[in-house]
């Protein structure tokens, strides 16, 4: 569904991505892990057309994305939940969702998509006309995901959806991601929360300093000592065993 080949991206002189290759198959959940500044956001922003591709190729459903503007890429069926949620705080909850379905002219379809969202998140039902900026962090994340799903995407790209959320809410987010995949949407998940991400991933890539350090199935990476050491609190395990 999505192929990235030898992607390079720089900001001015700073090389953020130094040749990465990633593949996401239809129906999968693929995770892209890495610490702060590894280049995860840069990768997904290149996919969505928010930053320009230096060299390399990105293909989505066999269509070349290089040089395409963000709004055209979305119309191909690729929705992007940006880092930090980026809900429209001055719009109501309803309007935020409608923004996601902006190019859908079928009113009854939009209505059923809205109802689907409110059925999935009944707690939001009484907040339809509330300004989105007044929602809690968790609710804003649900709204950001719901807004993206309003376009009925084939591929959903999520940039750190669990960032800054309470542990209980983080659980909800990962459950929702699994639910989305079950309903047939492919997911590319960016996370720092490697443990939770790997548990639901079919395949994962570990990014460091703009390069892919490791890749493998979720289970493989979960058991990889290097991943454990760097991202899964392996250092603490070691400290424990030293005692």
């Amino acid at each position, binding site marked *: 569904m999505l192929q990235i080949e030898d992607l390079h991206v720089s900001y001015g002189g700073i090389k953020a991505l130094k040749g990465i290759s990633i593949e996401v198959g239809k129906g999968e959940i693929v995770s892209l892990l890495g610490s702060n500044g590894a280049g995860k956001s840069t990768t997904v922003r290149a996919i969505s057309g928010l930053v320009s591709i230096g060299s390399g190729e990105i293909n989505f459903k066999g269509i070349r994305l290089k040089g395409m503007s*963000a709004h055209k890429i979305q*119309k191909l069926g690729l*929705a992007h939940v*940006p880092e930090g949620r980026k809900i429209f705080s*001055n*719009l109501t909850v309803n309007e935020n969702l409608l*923004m996601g379905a*902006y190019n859908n002219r079928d009113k009854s379809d939009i209505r059923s998509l809205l109802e689907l969202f409110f059925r999935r998140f009944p707690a939001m039902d009484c907040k339809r006309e509330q300004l989105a900026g007044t929602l809690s962090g968790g609710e804003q994340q649900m709204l950001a995901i719901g807004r993206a799903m309003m*376009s009925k995407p084939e591929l959903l790209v999520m940039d750190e959806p669990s960032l800054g959320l309470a542990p209980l809410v983080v659980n909800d987010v990962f459950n929702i991601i699994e639910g989305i995949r079950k309903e047939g949407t492919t997911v590319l998940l960016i996370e720092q929360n490697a443990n939770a991400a790997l548990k639901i991933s079919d395949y994962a890539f570990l990014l460091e300093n703009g390069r892919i350090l490791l890749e493998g199935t979720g289970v493989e990476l979960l058991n990889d000592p290097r991943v454990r050491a760097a991202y899964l609190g392996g250092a603490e395990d070691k400290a424990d065993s030293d005692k």
Partner: protein
Amino acid sequence: MDFSFATQQIIYGLTLGCLYGLLAIGYTMVYGVLRLINFAHGDLLMVSAYVAFFGIIIFSLPWPLAFVGAAVLTAMIGILIDRGAYKPIRKSPRISALITAIGVSFFLENLALVLIGGRPKSFPTPMMFNGSLTLGQLKIPVLSLWVLAVTLVLLIVVVTIIHRTRVGMAMRALSRDIETVSLMGIDENRVISFTFALGSVLAAFGGVMWCMKYPAVEPFMGVIPGLKAFVAAVLGGIGNVTGAAIGGLILGLAEVLIVAIEPDWSGYRDAIAFCIMIVILLTRPTGIMGENLPD
């Protein structure tokens, strides 16, 4: 100062205020979406005045057609200014855009000077806008009634578009986050063009009515009204459409009433607006209806 004199002056003040308000709405909408003070906006007053003037005088169009033509052409020029001057530097620092805006303003003024010449042309005000109604001691110019009515209708139309339509929703979203709007599959430049077009149409109506009130059409006629409309937009809370209209009314009233009370001050007419601006910036920079914007 008796009652009818005061009422008379208030009518004059409101009329002038409406014209400032029409222009201020365009300023405020573009600022709301792009955080750009489009200093060329005032010159659209001049553009529409010339289009209407030539439509009537040279092409002998009936005035309604000339006025509609002025609105359409001014809207197109508004879009062109954005596409030609601002879009290429959308990602540059804001100061570049500001300097560009001043450049576009000089360009339009001097282009008019070269193409048309600097001698003021007398605007052929259609008969039906002349004259006034007498109500007791009160004389209400017909034009004032038109200005008030047209402004009110346009304000309602604009507020409805912003709050009740799809493109209006996109405009509001754009004012917070252009990038995320593009992630929704929306061509942000089309929404921006629409914003410029809407603001320009209002400026065009303002321009034509301005010319009927002060019938001299010349290349620099938009400068002072433009600056005052900018003050009105700041006064009302820049980014807020209703605020811009209210700011315009306050400014128009202040200008007319202060001079009516103290005729010796008539020479300082233009200074009043800028004094108001200074006071606002010192005491309440977000204006009357403004919200606190990030950064």
